[in-house]
Every structure is written in C-alpha cells, then in structure tokens.
C-alpha cells in the first residue's frame, strides 16, 4: 500500500517532518555511516547519539542486553567521538536530505552550550538536550530530575542558539514540573521519556550483567509509563511532544499521538526488528489507517485526542 504522504506529515518545534517517526537517540548515530544506515530505514528525521564536548569512552561490555520481559537493558556510558563529529554527521544528513537532530549531553551548562554551538554552527536542524540518561554519573537524569537544573540548562542553550531546542526528559517524580521549566526556559519541544533505571542479575553466575551494574530499561516494558508521562505533560501545557519509549507497532505510536505527541521515536524495536525498513513502513501504514478510521485528515487532528473525554 502506498502511503498517503499528506496525511502523515507533521511538524515538531518548527521542523517539518514527512511523517511522525524518527529514531531514538543512542541507536547508532555518531558516524557518517550510521546516519546513512538510519536514513535507509525511512525515518523522517535522524537523531544522533548523545554528543559530549570531547570524545567519551563508554563502559566495557556488556553494555546492552535483552531481557526476558521483552525489553533491553543498557549502560553504554554515552560513548561518542565528541563534538568534532557533528560536521560530518550534518554533511551526511544534508546529502540524503533528512533533518538531523543533534542529541547533546554534558555535565554542566557550559558543556551543553559548547556542543549546542557546534551543532548550530554546522547548521544542524535542531538540538535535543539529553537531560535524562539514568545511568551515567554526572550526566542525564542527575541533572534532569531537578526542575531547576532543567531550567538553567535549557535556558543557557536556548539563549545562545537559534535552531530549535528540544528537551528530553526522563521518568522522575517531578517530570511534569521539569517539563514546564524546560518550556519556560525556551524549549520548543519535549522528548518524553528516556530509559528507566533498572538492573539484571545473572542467577547462574550471581553477577550483575552490565559492567556498570545499573542501566536503563527500554522497549515495550516502559511504554505504558511513557504514555502516562506524555499524557500528563500534554494535559498541563499542550506543548509539542515527541513520544519515546517502547514503540514497536502502530498501536503504540497511535497511543502516543492520542496522548499528545506530534512525533514519535523508535529505538529498541528497530534493533529487535528483522527488517527495520519494514517496521517503519508497517508503523506508518498502521498510523495512516488509524487516521482514516477516525476521519482525521492530518496527524495534527489526532494529537491529544484522548484528552477529549
């Protein structure tokens, strides 16, 4: 079935998207070759691996493992080549004409700003601030679980860049408040959520599996948690949201959209799919049918539809 390109179009933080589906950060995304591969999946935008100012070594493997519950557990440790790789990534994305969102990480405002400026100078499409990695000391959720920190990092970045800033928040007690602070500080969109802190122990060797012991849980197990966060945040602010967490079928994506998301990221399911291209096109076809079923002409009309109760 051919896709109805018009029906699936959406936009997020001012970025025009062919359809709502992009990859989640951390699935490839730090070399030219990765960008090329991701583009071949048929995604509407590509999100890079989180980039820090300087090259960062990750943890020793095991860094990613599948779990009995159908999810993945990972502690990669934000391994990346540092901001110098941005130029090459942008160049590759431009060649294949796909919007590129640079995921930015740091230990403090200065580091976030440093990478964000690099992204802007290379004319990346947008910036996604990773305020939510649950297992890398000094990064991510250690910053993102405090709404005031969220405010200051987003503010610092938003005030020095003109390209759209998206704040990616993780599960925390005050995630709704953090979302508000991010918007107040100038975020044009929110990505919700990151992985959830978890661990797995091998009962035959009695050892934690990940070298880092703790990691982030992703995939279907976290989807209902993510939908809840998207719903709560949308209800409060009617903001532009990218739903992320456990999407593996069009139903999961539609749930996010009904909860309030204008776009959706897929991570774990890309890795578990036998054919990522087929996964993406199946999700898009399902979404298109779903829009038709409800008589929606464009994605926009479906956004937040579950709030009309």
């Amino acid at each position: 079935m051919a896709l109805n390109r018009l029906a699936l179009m959406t936009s997020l933080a001012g970025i025009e998207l062919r359809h709502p589906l992009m990859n989640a950060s951390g699935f490839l995304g730090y070399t030219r070759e990765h960008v090329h591969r991701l583009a071949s999946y048929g995604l509407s935008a590509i999100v890079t691996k989180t980039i820090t100012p300087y090259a960062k070594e990750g943890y020793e493997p095991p860094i990613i493992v599948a779990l009995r519950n159908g999810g993945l557990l990972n502690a990669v440790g934000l391994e990346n080549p540092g901001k110098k790789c941005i130029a090459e990534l942008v160049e590759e994305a431009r060649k294949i004409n796909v919007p590129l969102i640079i995921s930015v990480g740091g230990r403090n405002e200065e580091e976030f700003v440093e990478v964000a400026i690099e992204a802007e100078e290379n004319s990346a499409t947008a910036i996604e601030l990773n305020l939510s990695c649950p297992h890398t000391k000094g990064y991510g959720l250690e910053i993102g679980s405090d709404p005031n920190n969220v405010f200051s990092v987003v503010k610092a970045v938003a005030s020095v860049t003109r390209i759209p800033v998206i704040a990616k928040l993780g599960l925390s007690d005050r995630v709704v408040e953090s979302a508000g602070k991010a918007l107040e500080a100038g975020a044009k969109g929110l990505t919700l959520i990151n992985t959830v802190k978890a661990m797995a122990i091998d009962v035959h060797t009695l050892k934690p599996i990940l070298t880092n012991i703790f990691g982030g849980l992703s995939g279907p197990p976290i989807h209902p948690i993510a939908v809840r966060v998207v719903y709560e945040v949308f209800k409060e602010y009617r903001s532009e949201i990218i739903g992320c967490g456990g999407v593996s079928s069009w139903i999961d994506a539609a749930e996010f959209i009904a909860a309030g998301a204008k776009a959706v990221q897929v991570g774990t399911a890309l890795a578990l799919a036998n054919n990522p291209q087929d996964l993406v096109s199946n999700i898009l076809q399902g979404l298109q049918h779903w829009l038709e079923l409800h008589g929606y002409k464009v994605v926009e009309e479906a956004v937040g539809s579950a709030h009309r109760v």
Partner: protein
Amino acid sequence: MLLEKDENKIPRFSFRPFKIIENIQIASNTFLLVVESANSLDHFSAKPFNFFNIWVPRVDEIPLSIAYQNGKRLFFLYKLRGLGTKTLAQQKVGSFIGIKGPLGRGFEPKRSEKWLIVAGGIGIAPIPMLIKRALELDAKLDIFWGVRVSTEFFDIAKIFGLPNEAWSIVRVSEDCMADFCGLVIDAIRSVNVDKYDGIIAIGPQEMLKTFCKQYGESRENTYVSLETIVKCGMGICGSCYIRESEKLLCVDGPVFRCSEVAKQLEGASA
C-alpha cells in the same frame, strides 16, 4: 551464500546460561571451549560463520565464531589476546558463562558447490562448522590454513570427529614445518580459483586486504569474514560499522563480498 538472520531476537540477544564442559589448550595460545545450555528447553541452531558473544562475568563480552554445534553443545576455538580471552581461559569446567547469539548472518555453500577456503591463524575457528554443513550439503571444500609457527596447528578432524571426505586441508606455516612454507596467501597463488564456485578468506585484516586485491575485483563470489570491534552484537552501539558502508558487521556480517568492504580493508593498513 549469505543466509538470513533468525526471527525472534529477544532470546538471541539475552545472555543464556551455559555450563562449561571443557576449556583446554589445544595449541600454542589456543583454546577449545565446549559449553552446554543450562536450560533444557533452550533451542537454537547456529549456522557456519554465526558468532556468539561470550560474557566473561564482570570482565568482558567477547565475540567468538561458532566452531561446531552438537545439539545443545557449542564449541569455540579461541586465541589468547587480552584480558577477556585470558580470563575466559581461566574459567573452570562446571562453571557458567552467559552466551548471546547466534549473531550475524550465516554463510554456507549452496548444494554440491565447491569452495576454496583460506584461513589465517585462528581464522580457522568457524571452519569445522562449515565442513559439517558442507557434508550435509554435499559440497566440497578445499581449505588452506596458514599460521606463523606450526605449534599453532591443531587437528580439527580429530577434535570434531569430522570424516575425511568432501574436504581437504593444506597446512601452511611461516616456519616451514608444514605442507607449504610461507604465507597462506602465497600458497594459493598456484591454485586455479576458477574451478571453484566461490572463495572465502578469514584471518588477519592484512591478509584479507591482499586477498581482496588479488581476487575480489574480478570475481563476484569472493568473500571475506571480517573482524571489527563488536560490543553489543545487536546492531545498536555502532562500534562494528563498516567504513563507507551502511552495513554493520554484527548484523550483516561477519562475511561480506570483497566489494562491500574495500574501504574498511584499506583502513586496516593505517
């Protein structure tokens, strides 16, 4: 022929517990590891050139080619390199390790084909499994196996109980204590490769580079089994990407056409 990947990835991407049945030195610096699934319901069928990530608890996760499969038993051949393989060599019989896989795509001849196999050093590891499969497929394999010093040789026929039919092996060593003296890449120069349906090389990158230069440009059916840094084995971390290619070794490899990995091999010399 490159084979398709398996279906449900959750069990393949988990560490399943395997008990160590044997873990012995069989040649200089080279070990044979035999493990058996701790779960009687565990079911998997590895294909030649599939690999498994072996979890050495609290130390590392190491990609090793499947050397042989016999029901629930998996066999690996490995060379000591760094901390991971050294710690693996210390694991005791009866203890458990975690195994992720089968990973990658399998590779095997088509029915009744004749293949030339060029193995360098521990590149011999996947070959017993390939022979087993060739026997099933009524295919013929001529194997050239080169090492630096002949103490690196071991007898794959004996270890895996392979019948001496349908395959031949020529041993090549730089210390001139084997069938042929020198580099394996030189040993095959005299072979008429045109009488084979395909050729495949596995071993150090330098060797593969030379191999592809010599045979890869004119012939379509010329393959190499590569190594890159494999971390996750799941197509996520990106460490195994092939230069100037969309391919990932852990998902699409480790076997590639020479033409697919030209840039990657170029980098090898750097």
